[in-house]
C-alpha cells in the first residue's frame, strides 16, 4: 500500500516538469511525459488494487498516512490516503481513462500552440482528481475538489482569446462557487459535529446521530454536501455551466466533463452514504433531483444541433441517473453506472473530437453526415458507444442502467414515479443518441466542398484509444451482470465491504425483474426506431417538427439561462453596481484613501528624521538608552 502515495505524486511531478520546463522542454518530451506520468500512475493504481484484492474482504480498508499537514490546537489533518474498493474503482477510472485521453490528446492537440500548457493543466487535473478520490479526510478531499474546479476553469477557458470560451470558464467557476460554498459549509458542520474531518472518525461516529435532533444535523450536513455535488456534477438547478463548458478542447470534455470530475459528486455522496442513510429526507432530495435532471437534460438533448452540446446534456442526464441510484439507496448501482458511463461517454466525446478534427472544427450536426466511409474506425467505435448508452442489451450501458431502474422500482425509497421518469429518459436517450449518430455518419455529407476535401481518419494516437474504450464499453458491463441473467454481479460483491452498513433491499421477484428489463429494451428500441424514422427514412417529418412550440422550448433549453440571467445575474449586477458606487467608492475608498494619505504624511515627516548624520543617529541611541534606563530603574 506504500505505493499509494505515488499515484497522485507522479501527475503532480509531470505538472511541475512541464509547467516549469516551459520552452526548454522539447515538444516530444512533453508528448511522452504528459501521458507517461498518468500511465505510470495507472500501473501504480493497478499494483495497489491487486494488493488490496489479496486481503480478505473485511480488511480491505487501508489508510496510509504520509505526514501531518495542518496542526492547530485540537484540529489536525494528515495527508493520508484511503485505499478501499470504492476509492480504487475511482482511481482506476481516473488514471485508466485519463491515460487514454492523454494519449488521444497528443494527436488532437498536436498543432496547438498551447500544447505544453495543455498537458501541464491536464496533469494538474489528474493530480487533483486523485487527491479527491484517494483522500481519507474531508479537507484533502476539499483540496482536490477545488483543484479540479480550478483545472476545469483553466481548461474550459483554454482558448482564452475566444470570448465565448473565457466566458464559459467564468460561468463554470462562478456556478460551481455556489455549490462549493455548500460543500465547505457541510465540511465545517461535520467538524463542529464530530470534532474531526477524518472519514474513519466521522463515519464511525455517524450512528450516534440517529436521535431526533441528530437526524436534523445529519439532514443539514447531507443537504449541504449535496449542494456541492449539485454544482460539481451539474444537477438541477446548477447544471447550466456544463453545456457551456464544451468550449474547451474536446479531450477535456471527455476527461473532465464526462468521465471524471463531474462524477465527483456521485463519488462523494456514495462515500458519505453513512450520513445519508441517517437522513431519509436528503435521500429523497437526491433521488428526485437526480430523476428530474435526467429527464430534463435528456429532453433538451433531443433537439440540440451542436454535437458536443448533445453529449453534454446527455452527460447531465446520465449523472442524474447516478444520483437517482444513490438516492434510492442503490449506491453500488450508481458507482457501476459511473464506471460504464466513463467508458462510453469518454468514447463518445473522443469520437466526436475525431469527427470535429476531420471536419476542420465543425461542430454543427446539420453540416455533417456521411462520414462512415471516410472514418471507419471512428464510425465503428462511435456506434458501439451509442448502442451502449442507449441501453441495447449485452452492452455495458444496458446492465448499469437496468440496475438503476430496477432499484428505483423496488427500493423502499424509490417508487413507480421515479422509475417512470427513468424509463422515459431511457427512450429519450436512445432517440437523441441515434439522431446524433445518423446525422453524423449516415446519409450524404452536408459539409462545404472545402471542408469535405480535408476529411480524413484521425491518426493512430487518436484511434487506438477509441478502440480500447470501445472494447471497454462492450465488456465493461459484465462486471455487474445481474443474477437474473445468470451473472454474479462482481462489482456489487467487490464494493460490498464499503457498503456493508446498507440495509438489505427486499429481493425482487424474478418475474418482475424480467418484465422491467424487457420494458427497458422495448423503450430503447422505440427510441432508436423513432430516430431512424425521423432522420433516415423521412427527414421531412423532422422538418415539420420544427414548427412545434415544444421544439422551440427545448431548443432554447427551457429558457433557464435567460431566467437565471433575469432573476439572479442582473439583480446581483445592478445591486453590486449600486453598492460599488455608493458604498465602496464613497465610504470605503474614502476611508482607505484618507488613512493612506495620513500614513503617507506620517512617513514623509518620519523620513526627515533620517538625516544621514551619524551624530544624530548616536543621539537617537542615547535617547533610547535614557528612556529604557529611566523606565526600568525608576519605573
Amino acid at each position, binding site marked *: 500500500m506504500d505505493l499509494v502515495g505515488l499515484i497522485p505524486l507522479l501527475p503532480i511531478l509531470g505538472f511541475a516538469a512541464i509547467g516549469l520546463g516551459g520552452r526548454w522542454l522539447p515538444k516530444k518530451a512533453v508528448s511522452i511525459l504528459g501521458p507517461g506520468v498518468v500511465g505510470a500512475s495507472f500501473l501504480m493504481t493497478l499494483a495497489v488494487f491487486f494488493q488490496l484484492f489479496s486481503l480478505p474482504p473485511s480488511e480491505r480498508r487501508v489508510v496510509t498516512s504520509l505526514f501531518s499537514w495542518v496542526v492547530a490546537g485540537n484540529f489536525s489533518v494528515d495527508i493520508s490516503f484511503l485505499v478501499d474498493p470504492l476509492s480504487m474503482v475511482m482511481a482506476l477510472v481516473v488514471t485508466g481513462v485519463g491515460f487514454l485521453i492523454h494519449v488521444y490528446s497528443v494527436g488532437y492537440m498536436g498543432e496547438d500552440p498551447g500544447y505544453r500548457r495543455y498537458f501541464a493543466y491536464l496533469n494538474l487535473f489528474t493530480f487533483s482528481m486523485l487527491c479527491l478520490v484517494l483522500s481519507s479526510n474531508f479537507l484533502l478531499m476539499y483540496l482536490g475538489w477545488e483543484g479540479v474546479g480550478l483545472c476545469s476553469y483553466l481548461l474550459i477557458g483554454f482558448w482564452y482569446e475566444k470570448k465565448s470560451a473565457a466566458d464559459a470558464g467564468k460561468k463554470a467557476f462562478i456556478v460551481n462557487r455556489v455549490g462549493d460554498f455548500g460543500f465547505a459549509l457541510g465540511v465545517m458542520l461535520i467538524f463542529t459535529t464530530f470534532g474531526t474531518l477524518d472519514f474513519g472518525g466521522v463515519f464511525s461516529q455517524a450512528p450516534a446521530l440517529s436521535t431526533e435532533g441528530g437526524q436534523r444535523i445529519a439532514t443539514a450536513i447531507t443537504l449541504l454536501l449535496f449542494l456541492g455535488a449539485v454544482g460539481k456534477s451539474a444537477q438541477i438547478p446548477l447544471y447550466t455551466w456544463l453545456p457551456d463548458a464544451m468550449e474547451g478542447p474536446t479531450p477535456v470534455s471527455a476527461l473532465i466533463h464526462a468521465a471524471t470530475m463531474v462524477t465527483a459528486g456521485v463519488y462523494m455522496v456514495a462515500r458519505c452514504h453513512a450520513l445519508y442513510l441517517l437522513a431519509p429526507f436528503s435521500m429523497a432530495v437526491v433521488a428526485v433531483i437526480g430523476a428530474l435532471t435526467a429527464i430534463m437534460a435528456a429532453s433538451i438533448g433531443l433537439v440540440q444541433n451542436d454535437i458536443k452540446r448533445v453529449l453534454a446534456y446527455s452527460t447531465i442526464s446520465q449523472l442524474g441517473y447516478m444520483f437517482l441510484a444513490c438516492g434510492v439507496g442503490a449506491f453500488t448501482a450508481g458507482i457501476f453506472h459511473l464506471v460504464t458511463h466513463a467508458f462510453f461517454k469518454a468514447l463518445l466525446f473522443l469520437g466526436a473530437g475525431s469527427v470535429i478534427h476531420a471536419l476542420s472544427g465543425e461542430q454543427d450536426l446539420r453540416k455533417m453526415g456521411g462520414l462512415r466511409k471516410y472514418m471507419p474506425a471512428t464510425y465503428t467505435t462511435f456506434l458501439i458507444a451509442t448502442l451502449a448508452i442507449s441501453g441495447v442489451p449485452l452492452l455495458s450501458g444496458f446492465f448499469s442502467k437496468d440496475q438503476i431502474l430496477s432499484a428505483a422500482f423496488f427500493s423502499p425509497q424509490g417508487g413507480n414515479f421515479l422509475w417512470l421518469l427513468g424509463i422515459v429518459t431511457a427512450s429519450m436517450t436512445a432517440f437523441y443518441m441515434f439522431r446524433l449518430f445518423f446525422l453524423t455518419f449516415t446519409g450524404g455529407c452536408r459539409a462545404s466542398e472545402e471542408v469535405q476535401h480535408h476529411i480524413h481518419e484521425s491518426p493512430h494516437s487518436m484511434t487506438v484509444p477509441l478502440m480500447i474504450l470501445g472494447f471497454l464499453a462492450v465488456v465493461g458491463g459484465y462486471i455487474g451482470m445481474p443474477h437474473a441473467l445468470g451473472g454474479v454481479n462482481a462489482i456489487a460483491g467487490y464494493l460490498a465491504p464499503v457498503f456493508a452498513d446498507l440495509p438489505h433491499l427486499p429481493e425482487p421477484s424474478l418475474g418482475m425483474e424480467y418484465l422491467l428489463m424487457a420494458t427497458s429494451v422495448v423503450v430503447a428500441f422505440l427510441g432508436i426506431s423513432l430516430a431512424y424514422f425521423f432522420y433516415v427514412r423521412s427527414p421531412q417529418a423532422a422538418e415539420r417538427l420544427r414548427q412545434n412550440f415544444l421544439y422551440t422550448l427545448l431548443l432554447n433549453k427551457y429558457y433557464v439561462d435567460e431566467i437565471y440571467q433575469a432573476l439572479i445575474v442582473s439583480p446581483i449586477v445592478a445591486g453590486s453596481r449600486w453598492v460599488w458606487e455608493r458604498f465602496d467608492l464613497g465610504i470605503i475608498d474614502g476611508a482607505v484613501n484618507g488613512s493612506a494619505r495620513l*500614513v503617507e504624511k506620517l*512617513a514623509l515627516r518620519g523620513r526627515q528624521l533620517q538625516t544621514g548624520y551619524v551624530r544624530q543617529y*548616536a543621539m537617537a*541611541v542615547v535617547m*533610547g*538608552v535614557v528612556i529604557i534606563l529611566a523606565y*526600568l530603574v525608576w519605573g
Partner: protein
Amino acid sequence: MDIFSIIGTVDYGALLPELFLLGFALVVMLLEPFLPERYKPVNFYLTVFGLLAAAGGSLWLWNRAGVNFGGMATSDNFAVFFRLVFIAGTLLTVLVSKNYLASEKFANGEYYALLLFSTLGMMFMAGSLDLMVIFLGLEVMSIPLYILAGFRKADVRSNEAGMKYFLIGAFASSFFLYGIALVYGATGTTHLQEIYNQLPTLQGRGDFLIYAGAALLTVGFAFKVAAVPFHMWAPDVYEGAPTVVTAFMSAGPKAAGFAALLRTFALFLGDYKEAMVAVFWVLAVLTMTVGNVLALVQSNIKRMLAYSSIAHAGYVLVAVVAGGPDGVSAALFYLLAYTVMNIGAFAVVLAVEGKEGSNQIGDYRGLVNRHPYLAAAMTIFMLSLTGIPPTAGFVGKLYIFSAAVSANQIPLVVIAVLNSLVSVYYYLGVVVAMYMHPSPAAEKNQSFYSLPLMLVLALTVWGTLQLGIFPQALLRAASDSLVGLF
C-alpha cells in the same frame, strides 16, 4: 588551571561546526595570496564546502547537547537550530556572490573569509551561556560586517556605509559591555544560569544594578536587530553596502541578535518579567510601525527592504513579548522563514541590478516581460514578506500572532495586524510595477542567469513554499529546539 588542562577538557565534538568554519576561513584567507588568478574560484568552492561541512556537523549535534569551557558554551538544540539558520543565510549569500564578485573585481579570498568569520561569530552568540562569550561573538560577527559594508572601496556610498556602521556599532557595543559590567556588579557572575539563580535574592543596590544592566543589554541587542530607535544606521548601511553584503546582513546577524536576546532574556526574566515585557512591548510597536510606515515612501528597493527588515524585527519582538515555549518557537520559525524569503528577494534585486543596473522600484516596471522567472520569484517573496498564504511568511506570522494571543497580548496583535496591512501596500507595489505597468522600453525577454543564482532562486522559492504549505516538520524542530531552555 593552566592552558593545557583546559585544552584537555574541551569537547571538540560539540564545537565541530565552529571548528569547520574556523578552519576553512583560515585556509581561504591564507591561500588567497598564493592562488594564481585563474584558480581564484577555489576560494568559492572551499567556502561552500566548509559551510556544508559545518551544516553536517550541526545536524550531527542535534539532540547531543554538549557543554564546553566550564559551561560557557553549549551545543543544545537551540544552538543547532540557529547554526543551521546562519549557515543557510551564509550559503545562499555565498552562492549569489560568485558572479557578483567577478563583475566587481573583489579580492574574493578576503570576502569569503570575512563571511565565514562573521558566521562563526553568530554561532558563538547562539551557543553561548555566558554574557562575555555573547559579547565576544557579537564582535567577531560585527567586525567583518563593518569591513564588508565598505567593501566597494572606490564607491563613496559603500565607504560611508562601512564607516557609519562601525561608529554606531562601536557605540552600541560599549553600552552592551557596560550592561555586562553592571550585571556582574549585581551578581558577581556573567554566566546566565548563575545570574538567573541569583535573581530572587537580589535587593536594594543589586536590584537597581540588574535593572540598569538589563536596560543596557537590551540596547545592545536592539541595535543588532535594528529595533527602533536603534535602527537608524540600517537604511543607510543597507543601501550603501554592496547588495550581496546587504542580503547577508539582513538575515544572519539579525537572527544572531535574536538568538542571544532570546537566550539571555528567556533565562533572565523571573520576577523581572513584567518590566522587561513592557520594554519589549514598546520596542515591538515602535519597530513595526516605523519600519512599515517608512518603507511606504521608499523608491529604492534596497532601502525599502531595509525598512522592511526593521519591520520584521518588530514582528519577532512580538514573539519575544509573547514569550514562553510558544513565543520562542514562533520566533525561531519566523527567523528561518525570514532568512529564506528575504535572501530570495535580495537575490532577485541582485539579478536585476546585474542585468539593468538599477535599484529603483520604478525600474521594475514591466519586469515580467523582460525576466518572467525573476518576476515570478519576486512575487512569491513579496507575498511571503506580506504574509499571504501559502507561503512561509504567512505561517510564521500566524504562529507569532497566535502565541501572542495566547499570552493575552491582544492589543499588540491588533497593532501587528494593522502593520501587516500597511506593508501590503509597498510589497505589492513591487508586484504591481512588475506585472501591471508597461516596460519603459520594449525589450525582449532576455532571461539567462548564472547557475548559482538560479540555484539560490530555486532553493529560496522552494523553501518559501515548503515552509508555507508543509510547515509541520520545521515547527516541530523549532519547538524541539527549546529542550532544556524552559
